[in-house]
């Protein structure tokens, strides 16, 4: 089953989004968080993101959802570093081009159905065009 990683500058946001996504997910989708820095301040940490990806992976790949700005650069760096120089055991992980909350919920719903990483990503990215009002 595809796992999810929630990346945010804020630990509270990451935790809160995980909570919401867990509610909708069935079959225990693994959702890891990487919110804020180790000392509790706001920001993103590529090393923490790498650890979260490893936590969320169970062999079918991981979808990474980010809030704004530099969280995406940190996530990209994490994915580059994570698989560097590995001949085997590389984790398949991609970043969703999707809003954080809506994307995470759609992804959790998809992943629970056992679909592929590509389909989970597509499900998350569809939420880009969902109108709010």
């Amino acid at each position, binding site marked *: 089953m595809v796992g999810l990683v929630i990346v945010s*500058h804020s630990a509270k946001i990451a935790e809160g989004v995980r909570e919401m996504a867990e509610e909708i997910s069935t079959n225990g989708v693994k959702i890891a968080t990487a919110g804020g*820095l*180790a000392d509790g*301040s*706001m*920001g*993103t*940490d*590529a*090393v*923490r993101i790498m650890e979260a990806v490893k936590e969320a992976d169970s062999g079918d790949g991981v979808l990474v959802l980010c809030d704004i*700005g*530099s969280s995406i*650069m*940190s996530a*990209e*760096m994490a994915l580059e570093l994570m698989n560097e120089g590995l001949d085997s055991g590389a984790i398949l992980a991609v970043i969703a081009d999707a809003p954080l909350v809506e994307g995470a919920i759609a992804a959790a719903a998809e992943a629970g159905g056992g679909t592929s990483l590509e389909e989970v990503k597509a499900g998350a990215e569809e939420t880009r065009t969902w109108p709010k009002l």
Partner: protein
Amino acid sequence: MNSKAYDVLALIADRLIENRDYLTDLDREIGDADHGINMARGFGLVKEQLPKDEADIGVLLKKTAMILISKVGGASGPLYGTAFMRAGAVMSGKTALDPETLKEMLQAAVKGIQDRGKAVQGEKTMLDALIPAQQALDKGIEENKPLAECLADMAKAAAEGAEWTKTVKATKGRASYLGDRSIGHMDPGAVSSTIMLEALRDSIG
């Protein structure tokens, strides 16, 4: 160039820590008032955690990168992290710096920032200090000027580039949310880049 690589990085750290409030004030004008705090935190830990006697410059630069990407927090983490990572790859296994490798190292660092941030010159980012600096260094070395002069040219070009960022509107990063209100203010990243290059000039020139 006989200074220990650790000492160069330590001077960079000291200069950034000295300028913490200045950088934060710049960032308060057009950002979220944390650039100085972030850089001081990250480089403070670099100074604390790097092995002082490591001779392999590549190892030191890569360790610096790893600290920056987890301790800086803002965009400067992945941006400077990538720069130091790429510089570290050029310097892998090397224990001394010469003008050619210095040139290669700065080129790799700047390209790393361009690849990571997807910005180009002219968008009011650190690249507006770094690209002119790198070009000035290249030119000096190609013309066989004494190293100290090349480094002085490099640092001067960086400072001029940072000054130039006042004249345009931000289109990248948090400052871009301010639109025209960002005009008249220097990009904090361009200033921190200048501070780093000045420290490099002062420690190996």
